[in-house]
């Protein structure tokens, strides 16, 4: 593997279109957590409370404590992205995000939206909540806390060199498809 490309948020279209499935990356800057409730809200035409143009959505429901003191992230890793597949194309189109961080990959509609709008999907290591927590330097705001609850709320996080791997690029390539195809062929051999 090549050394990771360091990406700074917000991202411009050229940078994102030059990323390829398989590239290791790190992300630094302001990112936002988003789960099922947020995606459905935006896909249904609801308002996004922040400007996400060039931004990053992190499929994550953190363990987080606070106030009365400041918010403190106790654990934060990616959640399964596939659940957002019905809403993701609408969210990409409506918000102008350039990067989705999650786990497990996404389906053909999201791949098409990544190609059309210039967006990539970055896989973070599932379950590595302590490893990733250490890359979060601050919690600066929260939206939809009362409406969605803490796990589903939209948390504004500042991250420093959060590592991941581009697994769906803006040319329609998906690492998951290659792995899945190979495993299905091997399965046929094992069941022959």
């Amino acid at each position, binding site marked *: 593997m090549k050394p990771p490309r360091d990406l700074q948020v917000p991202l411009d279209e050229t940078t994102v279109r030059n990323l390829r499935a398989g590239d290791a990356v790190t992300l630094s800057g302001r990112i936002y957590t988003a789960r099922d409730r947020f995606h459905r809200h935006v896909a249904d035409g609801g308002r996004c409370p922040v400007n996400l143009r060039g931004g990053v959505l992190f499929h994550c*429901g953190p*363990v987080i404590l606070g106030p009365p003191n400041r918010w403190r992230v106790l654990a934060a890793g990616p959640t399964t992205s596939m659940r957002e597949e019905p809403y993701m194309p609408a969210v990409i189109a409506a918000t102008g995000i350039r990067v989705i961080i999650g786990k*497990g990959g996404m389906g053909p509609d999201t791949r098409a939206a990544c190609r059309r709008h210039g967006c990539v999907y970055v896989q973070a290591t599932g*379950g590595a909540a*302590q*490893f990733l927590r250490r890359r979060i330097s601050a919690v600066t705001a929260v939206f939809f806390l009362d409406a969605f*609850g803490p*796990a589903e709320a939209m948390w504004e996080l500042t991250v420093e060199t959060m590592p991941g791997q581009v697994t769906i690029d803006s040319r329609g390539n998906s690492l998951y498809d290659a*792995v899945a195809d190979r495993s299905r062929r091997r399965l046929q051999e094992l069941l022959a």
Partner: protein
Amino acid sequence: MPIDHTYANLRQAALELIRRAATRLPDDVRQALRAAHRREPANSPARSTLAILNRNADWADTDAAPLCQDTGTLSFYGRIPPQCPIPRLNKAIAAAVRAATRVGMLRQNTIDTLTGQSVADNVAPGSPQCRWETAAIKHIDLWLLMKGGGCENTSTQFSLPDTGLNAGRDLDGVRRCLLQAVVTAQGHGCAPSILGVCIGGDRQYGYETAKRQFLRPLTDQAAQPELAALERRILRDANTLGIGPMGLGGKTTLLGVKIAAVSRLPASYFVSVATMCWALRRAGIRLNEHGQIERWLQP
């Protein structure tokens, strides 16, 4: 000395059990992850993913912080003396869950299915789950499994015969179901995974028994030689599928396979497959006749 499992002691013990399960991977799982890391080639995504998982486990342990932010379905399994009052046990465990949620050892991880609202303290119908069995003992053995939603969503059940899989009502049919389940799941349930399997039963008892297999250490094998052989074969064959950690390719798709068989009706032949992510959070504790902590039941 009279048996007196006081509420305060039980609550304290349950809280310690939650802390241990949420923050510390059992030694057998740690060893399996380290061995997997050694097997994968240098500079591969699989090896770097496993390195992250190992470091994550170190940090969760030293910081006493949750391994994974999805602190999962809480399933308690207790063996208790006949005179031990189950309502008191349930109440003490619920109180421990509330306390663990308050301090961030558990995520607010419970949703009211009808309203969609988050349940602030994680105590609601179905959470936590407690299963009790009595035995002629004075102590209490209490186990906890924490299983996240990502891997639970990939669990599945087959009814044999299955013509699509060419799977009949025999162990070769079971083998076909298990390999198909692994390929369908890909990396979605945070591979490398552990399979808990039950052959037989009705649908409910099949799933129940499949999940219980996660209480077994990864290092043991089924008591029946034919099931032990199937466990070894599925582990070996699944790791040639190339799915790998997080579904990004590699030699490590499964860390373990645990299979049990129970009786069935003549009409039914279910194969129930519970899929567990690499973060197999299992802890067990023994309490003395006063409900005080005596020792951990696994390293």
